[in-house]
């Protein structure tokens, strides 16, 4: 996978993950073009799109569009299911996810994505394992929050 974009029906970008090194200018250009093209498509049309030398696979969930760019030899259907699995993960984590969850907790959405896809390849496809990993990291975060001051002192003495 080359990149993944999440944007709203109004064309606002909600999440972007690039797996190929591109300069900012190029990224902006691609985003603008793709958002326009995808939003212009009608609901009955198929979820695939040939764009430049890439294949775009997109799917709309409520007000959010999930959009992935893959190479020509990649399997479009499985990419569609990657999107779906990601939505399932978000849904399970946030508990009935909505666009606002992603807007306000976009860093969490990124953490989940990084746990699911790494470097553009599916890393862990078991839902349970992904969520376990995230929860572990979150748990640590909770602990840290509860004992913020003493812990950093501890860390300075012992852990680092």
């Amino acid at each position, binding site marked *: 996978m080359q990149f993944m974009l999440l944007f709203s029906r109004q064309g606002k970008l909600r999440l972007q993950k690039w797996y190929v090194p591109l300069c900012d200018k190029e990224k*902006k250009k691609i985003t603008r073009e793709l958002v326009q093209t995808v939003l212009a498509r009608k609901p009955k049309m*198929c979820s695939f799109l040939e764009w430049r030398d890439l294949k775009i696979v997109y799917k709309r*969930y409520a007000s959010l569009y999930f959009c992935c760019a893959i190479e020509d030899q990649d399997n*479009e*259907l499985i990419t569609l299911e990657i999107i779906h699995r990601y939505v399932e993960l978000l849904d399970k984590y946030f508990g009935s996810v909505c*666009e606002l969850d992603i*807007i*306000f907790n976009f860093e969490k959405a990124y953490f989940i994505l990084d746990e699911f896809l790494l470097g553009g390849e599916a890393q862990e*496809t078991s839902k349970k394992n992904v969520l376990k990993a995230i929860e572990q990291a979150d748990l640590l975060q909770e602990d840290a929050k509860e004992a913020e001051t003493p812990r950093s002192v501890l860390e300075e003495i012992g852990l680092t």
Partner: protein
Amino acid sequence: MSDVVEKTLSALPGLFDSQTGAARITSRLRQLVKSITELTSKNEEESLIKQELSSMKEQVSSPNTSMMREIMVRAMYCEMLGYDASFTYIHAIKLAQQGGVLEKRVGYLAVSLFLNEGHELLLLLVNTVLKDLQSTNVIEAYMALTVVAQVFPKDMIPAVLPLLEDKLSYPKEIIRRKAVLALYKFYLIAPNQVQHIHAKFRKALCDRDPGVMTSSLHIYLQLITESPDDYKDLTGSFVTILKQVVGGKLPVDFNYHNVPAPWLQIQLLRILSLLGKEDRSTSELMYEVLDESLRRAEMNHNITYAILYECVKAIYTIHPKAELLEKAARCIGNFVLSPKINLRYLGLKALTYVVQHDAKLALQHQMTIIECLDHTDFTIKRETLELLFRITNAQNVTVIVEKMLDFLHGCSDEHTIIHLVGKVAELAEKFAPDNSWFIQTMNDVFSTGGDLLQQDVPNNFLRLLAEGSESKEEDDQLRLYAVNSYLTVLKGDASHLPQRFLQVMSWVLGEYAHLQESVDQREVIRLLTQLLDQRSVSSETRVWILSALTKISEGQTDLILDLAESLSSSQDTVLRQQAQELRQLSQDSQLYEWVLPRGAPWDSMEVDSSLSFLDGFVSEALAAGAAPYKPPHQRQEELCEDRALNLEPYSFSLPVSLSSCSITDRQSPTLLSVSSGLSGNSTELSQKAGSSTLILEGVKRVWGRDGYLRQNETTAPPVDEPSAAVQPSGQQEAAERLEPQPEPSTQNQDKLQLASSLFVGLGAGSSMSLLGKSEAPPPRFRKKPRPHESSSSSSSGTSERSSDSSSRSSHSTTDSFLYGSLLEEEPATSISAFSHTPKSSTANGLAQNKDTKEDRRANTSQILGGDMVIVRPNTFQDKHPSLVSSDLTALLPADLKDLPHSDVISLTSDPSLSLSSCRLFRDEALLLVILISNCTETVIKDVAVQLTCEELETASLRGNVMNCLEGNSTSVCHYALLMDEPHTNVSFTGTVSYQTQPGHTNTLSFSGTLSAADFIRPLVVSTEEYGKLWLSLSHDVKQNLKLLTDASDPLRTTLNALKDALQLHVVDIIGSEGIVACRLLSGAPCLLHCRVNGAALAMWLRSPHPALPDCILYHCQRALAQH
């Protein structure tokens, strides 16, 4: 799923109140997001963000890390909105470094979002990553791995590699999994660096955790794509894994909608199809599991279809098995007939893939295909056209091209236009039923494709017109038709026409307007002159137009003088110069005859690519004190030297400095490359520098050694009998004898008609197969056979040489063009450029071509003699009953006897011939000696060897063609090969053709690999010189290697082992350090600095060439591993 996400912005206020649960929001971010959603205009947003960014700038240096974390999140948000927050990048790195786990997580995330591989700040992250990888805290190690697998600077890979290797055996599977993926990433960006840990990949493949195993498949897919042959032994394991997965042996966790591990299945199916491709025995191992996969995937869900699609592709890729093919074909039917549009798209895609193997499959689905052709969805339409492109033949070409052009007229996407227009041009060239259709279609191509068109489309078209086919009469008809058509176009409104089209038209009119006798030439001149006045015409096109005018201006002095007058004040210097030439030519009819001889064959010109006629001028200039010319790469080299402040001369000469250019140096590389662009005719001379749009072929060449070349009666190439004419009525006839359609009653009559014209020629009855197994209709524009090179210098080879000497690629495009039209059933892309070269005559020509190259090489190495190019068969009449391992030196020519050489290895054999090869190491080249021995008692005739290797350059060859080879004798042929760019391994292929009985040609193909080690030569320098050179080199690589510790002096033993394997020169050994030097043939040097570091050898390599150190390092690792 859609029911899950149904909250909208109306839920906003409620969310803000709830601080618990999933929607926990950091306060400042919440504020920011909230205020942005309340804004109405872009301007307001901009000013708000500006404010936000400046307040962040103030706080950003705060030591409070938890505040920093919050700032980072806001910075990410601003960047996502498209604003620049680059001042926070450095702080993201700092946060990852200094923060506790909580902050680190955000810091690493910010880094992976902000920076990409090449960003210089990333270097600052390396230490943090190293520290975290060694941390006892699993979470820290795991966050570091996550970032390494996403962004990591290529140069620093050696630093983390040992740590990653350790992580492969870490107890926690999540760590192992991430380490595998990080290694995969490294493999993608720097494959040579991870060569030595392939054994560990195998361990990951056998990991007890299915997740780790799945991750390792990414690496294997990549490795197997690159070299399937190396991994055939794993086929059994992959098949077993797939069997277990399909059989539901994995934990239920990995199920996705009740389908066991679909991602894993798809990955395995891909790997299997790569392994089984063109390999019968490997394919047989997987038939059973493929069958089972097809059978198990029954559920009606996207995910099963994804697996089925991959299965079908695999079945059609590997060695075919009838039973499976049948099942797969049925499966495609499910896709194509599905009401779901996504599945239908996949069905079309599968069909497009499958019709290459079996065109008849398209017949079963013709009505669906036609429906898809009229579909409202652009994507579906385009995929359908792609499918139609694959099934085009001479009978349905007009309908299919019409459909494609219809689509193009309504399309605005640049990439699609470029892509499809190229296909239309390709089809038109291959299958055109008649002249008028061809020219009309090409007109459409040029006006639709416009200036986006790939340059080779107009080039091929013009070349086709210029070279002609086998019959002059037919050619002239085609040209005449083109002229008429263009005159009509130009009489209309030409202002909207694309530049490329205008260029094509003006070239054709310039060359062939005289064929049209009923139109006054003055009218043509008037039309072209009109174009010159139009503002929309680019200055490049003006040059084309003016060249055309020059060609048809004969006898129209008054018009031309007017024109030249009006242009002589043009601001464009090129136009002014051309106008001046035009004036001169029109006043001197004798000169005009020389420069633009009418009716001379296009390929009869001798090109003086060395521009020797300028010698006088150059020597005068030099005598007057001008500085001698230096080629650009030499100037570059000098600049580099200046930068490194290395003021003393090197004690040994780098190759470039040897090729100093004097005027006697006629064949210097630069002169060649310059001259090929200017090889002489009025069009090209007036061409602007750097413009790549000129067609070299097919234009009259009139510059020679003595300036303008007078055209004496050159013998026209033999014109062959016209080929069997194409019946224009063939299409209708074929359409009539179409097979009965399935269920004709229910189908709409129009569609049926369309179907009959689209799918004509695909049925079994019409005996046409797309793979060209059965007869094909004669192509419209078959190339005339190339005249024999040896007959005279006025042959096509001459023009080819000019392009060949400047670049290899142009040579190969020439070839693919040439043979492209002969293989009309295949898309042109699959045509290999060299394999079709006719043997003896062209082999001769090849040697001639090499002539120029050879001389060029001679400048650099000063070793190769000019006589190397003469093809001289060395048949040894003395009897050698058994060849392999017999005394090689007895067979070699005297001048090669003393060279170091490898063992003789057998390449291939058949009942008549046996081939073996041996490598001889000459300083400036690798000699690949091929020994051809006749195993029979009888004489073998017309033996010709053809060797191909894309990565290497052949400097010379000897003995590759011989008229006869006596029974039981052996002949030697050898190729001097050069490696300009380092490649770790290169493979070569070749064929030997020979005749045991007259008229019956056999071919024997062979292949082999050469390693970079064959091209490495010792570089003898003193320690002092080494030191100087070291400082001047820029590209370096460091890595720890294995030290051979079993001897008393490990360093010396290790270096000697390397020296034996790689022909390195050990310059000096001082204490625990050793310095070693080598070079790539007589080219780029590479210096190695080795130091004993505990039980390892720390190696530091430097070279002016960026890829050479990696390559040498790889071979060092191998040499030590094998020791």
